[in-house]
């Protein structure tokens, strides 16, 4: 389990640096796809591990983008509210051991809401920290909404893609 998450950490970091950081959509949209790592950490992840891995994820990314601290701060904040969001979204299926956050185990509705809240919170923190002033609020909100939508679409696509694959290999 730990190995899988470590692998995901590295893959997502490089995807973000080499692919998503180079997507210049309309000039103001920035998909921070790496939040996917924080979303997919298993439920039983210990609190300190959740916070520190998220922090490391953000910090590693900061080294590539000259934005020291910004991604780290947004990621730690996202990790901090994650347990609260999970409690808020109790599904019919209890969070049994072995269940991972994802469409496969908890259904589309649950995962969509879960991803929506966390991605939006993350992007809000990220873009406000980046601008670091309140005067351009209209423009900042514009960026937050547009970028969140794109990140969310990418996350859902990744989910559908992987869920499809797993079903084939596991059950058939």
């Amino acid at each position, binding site marked *: 389990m730990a190995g899988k998450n470590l692998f995901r950490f590295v893959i997502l970091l490089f995807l973000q*640096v*080499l692919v998503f*950081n*180079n*997507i*210049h*959509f*309309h*000039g*103001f*949209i*920035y998909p921070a796809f790496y939040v996917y790592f924080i979303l997919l950490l298993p439920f039983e992840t210990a*609190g*300190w591990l959740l*916070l*520190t891995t998220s*922090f490391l994820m*953000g*910090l590693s990314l*900061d*080294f*590539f*983008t*000259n*934005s*020291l*601290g*910004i991604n*780290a*701060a947004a990621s*730690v*904040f996202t*990790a*901090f509210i994650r*347990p609260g969001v999970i409690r808020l979204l109790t599904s019919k299926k209890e969070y049994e051991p072995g269940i991972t956050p994802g469409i496969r185990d908890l259904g589309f509705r649950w995962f969509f809401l879960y991803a929506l809240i966390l991605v939006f919170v993350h992007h809000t923190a990220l*873009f406000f*920290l*980046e*601008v*670091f*002033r309140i005067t*351009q609020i209209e*423009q*900042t909100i514009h*960026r937050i909404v547009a970028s969140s939508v794109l990140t969310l679409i990418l996350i859902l696509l990744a989910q559908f893609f992987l869920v499809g694959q797993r079903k084939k290999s596991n059950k058939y």
Partner: protein
Amino acid sequence: MRNLITFLWKNYFFFLFVILEVFALFLVVNNNYYQRRVFINSTSDFSGNILASFDDMSSYLSLKNANTILSEENARFYNMQPEAFLISDTASFYRNDSLYTRHYVYRTAKVISSSINRRNNYLKINKGFRHGISPDMAVVTPHGIVGQVIEVSENFSSVMSILNNNARISAKLKASNQVGSFFWDGNDYRTGLLVDIPSHVQISIGDTVVTSGYSFIFPESQPIGIVEDYSIETGDSFYKIKVRFTVDYNSLYHVYVIGNRLHDELIELDKIDLNE
């Protein structure tokens, strides 16, 4: 004491969050000063190497375009050579070395990573202090300005793009020589704003905006963009001019780094002014 430890232990999730968040925010706030020097210098060689090797793969795709730009440049330089002029008066071409003090030094560099979609955009270039680059040098392309060097490691440099909240440049209208202040408003990476041009000045759409040469960083008359639109608020005595960049910041590849050899001298002079 024991109660305190139990309390901290029970709520460690919250306290760890606070510690990490404060540390991250500390980094954000100190971004431009001390932390940056310590962190970036030790890591940017590592991250720069990764970015550079990725760039090697993609550089072939833009080779054709880069060649065109370079040959245009060459043509321009050939045009400036003494051989390109008809010499009618030999005396006027006599060169005295002490009269021609070199003011600016040009170096070429390649962009290995850049962004346009953040509010604060930066670039990385593949030259560092080993190649003579130092902070506060200007980065330009033949078509217009790009930004200024802010951090230098051994083999790479970070450049603050003009597409950055913290970038402000002294600029002027080429036609009327009126000087104003130029910055990026963060909306569209293809346009920026020129302000502080008084309302009595005649402006027409299509005017060229160039650097004023008042800053110690950019040489005079480096192109920035062309006037696309201008407006004036009621009761205001200064124009707000929308300027379309002449450089496409989304396709930067070869850039020139310009060092001002008299930079330190100018700074010294400034200090003397302030002391009085």
